[in-house]
């Protein structure tokens, strides 16, 4: 196997230790850092996401893959930074006001980090003002909101309205997700994207950064 194939396999297998070793060796051997990301890690995360969507992977496998990727990315990020390459983007993630559930949010955060995004985790029970503040002060381009309860989904609507009132709606892409949330609800409240799963959230975030969502 080539180093890139080894890295692909290590990320799929959720083997962080091997992913790091393979990455370090490959960099030493002169494999371009960007190739490791674009041809090894990204396809591996996509494949892990695909397996999750078709019930071959469940949350533990997905988390391990994201962790392996994040761990290998730590070696690569400084090198990419030197070459002037920018991180995938900065995302503020939070569970909306009134809702204290953080498992879904944490899964999305782990997947986003695995995919090279910088995550600003605002925690649970996040008020609209806190999301807005993150966009104002932390150079956040994407806001990802989570809600587990049918009773707290409405906080997503009020948060989006608050962005409008603050005159910031055009400066941020807003993604929503969580068990009771649907595409229809996302459209109704004027969100930019909805995903039913954590891997889907990564695809949305990528689209948002490329300006197609």
């Amino acid at each position, binding site marked *: 196997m080539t180093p890139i194939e080894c890295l692909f396999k290590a990320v799929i297998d959720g083997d962080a230790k091997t992913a790091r070793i393979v990455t370090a060796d490959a960099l030493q051997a002169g494999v371009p850092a960007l190739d490791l990301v674009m041809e090894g890690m990204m396809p591996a995360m996509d494949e892990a996401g695909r397996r999750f969507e078709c019930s071959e992977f469940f949350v533990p496998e997905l988390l391990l893959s994201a962790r392996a990727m994040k761990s290998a990315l730590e070696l690569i990020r400084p090198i990419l930074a030197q070459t002037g390459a920018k991180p995938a983007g900065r995302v503020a993630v939070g569970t909306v006001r009134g809702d*204290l559930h953080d498992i879904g949010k*944490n899964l999305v955060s782990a997947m986003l980090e695995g995919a090279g995004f910088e995550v600003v985790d605002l925690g649970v029970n996040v008020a609209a003002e806190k999301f807005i503040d993150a966009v104002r002060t932390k150079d956040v381009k994407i806001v990802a909101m989570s809600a587990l309860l049918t009773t707290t989904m*409405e906080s997503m609507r009020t948060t989006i309205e608050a962005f409008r009132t603050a005159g910031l709606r055009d400066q941020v892409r807003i993604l929503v997700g969580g068990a009771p949330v649907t595409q229809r609800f996302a459209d109704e409240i004027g969100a930019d994207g909805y995903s039913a799963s954590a891997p889907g959230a990564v695809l949305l975030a990528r689209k948002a950064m490329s300006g197609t969502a």
Partner: protein
Amino acid sequence: MHPLLEQLLADGPVLTDGAWGTELQSRGLAIGEFPDSWNLTHPDRVEAVARAYVDAGSRVILTNTFGGNRVRLALHGLADRLEEINRRGAEISRRAAGGHARVFASMGPSGTMLMTGDVGADELAEGFAEQARALAAGGADGIVVETMSDPEEAVIAVAAARSTGLPVVACMVFDSGRDHDRTLMGTTPEQAAARLDAAGADVVGTNCGQGIEGFVPLCRRLRAATDRPIWIKANAGLPRMHGGRAVYGTTPEMFADHVPALLAAGAAFIGGCCGTNPEFVAAARRRLAPNPLP
């Protein structure tokens, strides 16, 4: 088998209760408000929910203590009220039961994940043990560890519940996978039954996550995987949103139509979860007849 369970099951399958959260909401619990705190602030209304289930024919009722473990209470700033919230929760249900029903106290998940390191196993174990002790002190007849997605967490909670000496029911929620027969963590009914059985649960089962029709195959698989009695608490379908409120599509009669199939699949305890109410219990009771009521 635990003597209390033997006694309960002597006359055949046992009817349990339905949902609590939505019943409390219909009695004024605000959207987003933490239900368990009502054991302290509105004990009369909590008791009214419990009584409605006893009146509908529940022979086992639960308690308003689903979120009463330390990890979850801490999120609501109520960790210092743990003992009181749980003890009173058990006392309220006992009062409502009035000798006509047994009280199996509810212990729900922590809402965090061991695997992501957000909570440690020791912290979790202590948080559940404190809750279990308070529930026992309040006079619970048994404990139901319910809505668990992670077998590791379920096993920790079962151990905590068992330390009280009360009979312990352990249920997981199968809401993932193509056929909705896996937990969030990928656990199958067979794996769940084996783990919970080995952990010493007296009753093994499943609650929440899908409509009642999905519970028939789950019940059959659990039945085949363990000798313990099987506990089923099914949702009234999955919610649809209407004007900011969750609406469940299944009617009490539609729900009750599945009761015979669940009995045939080996269910020993039958009740409802999200979206059900005392009418569902009353409808299910008619299908459980001619089992005598106490």
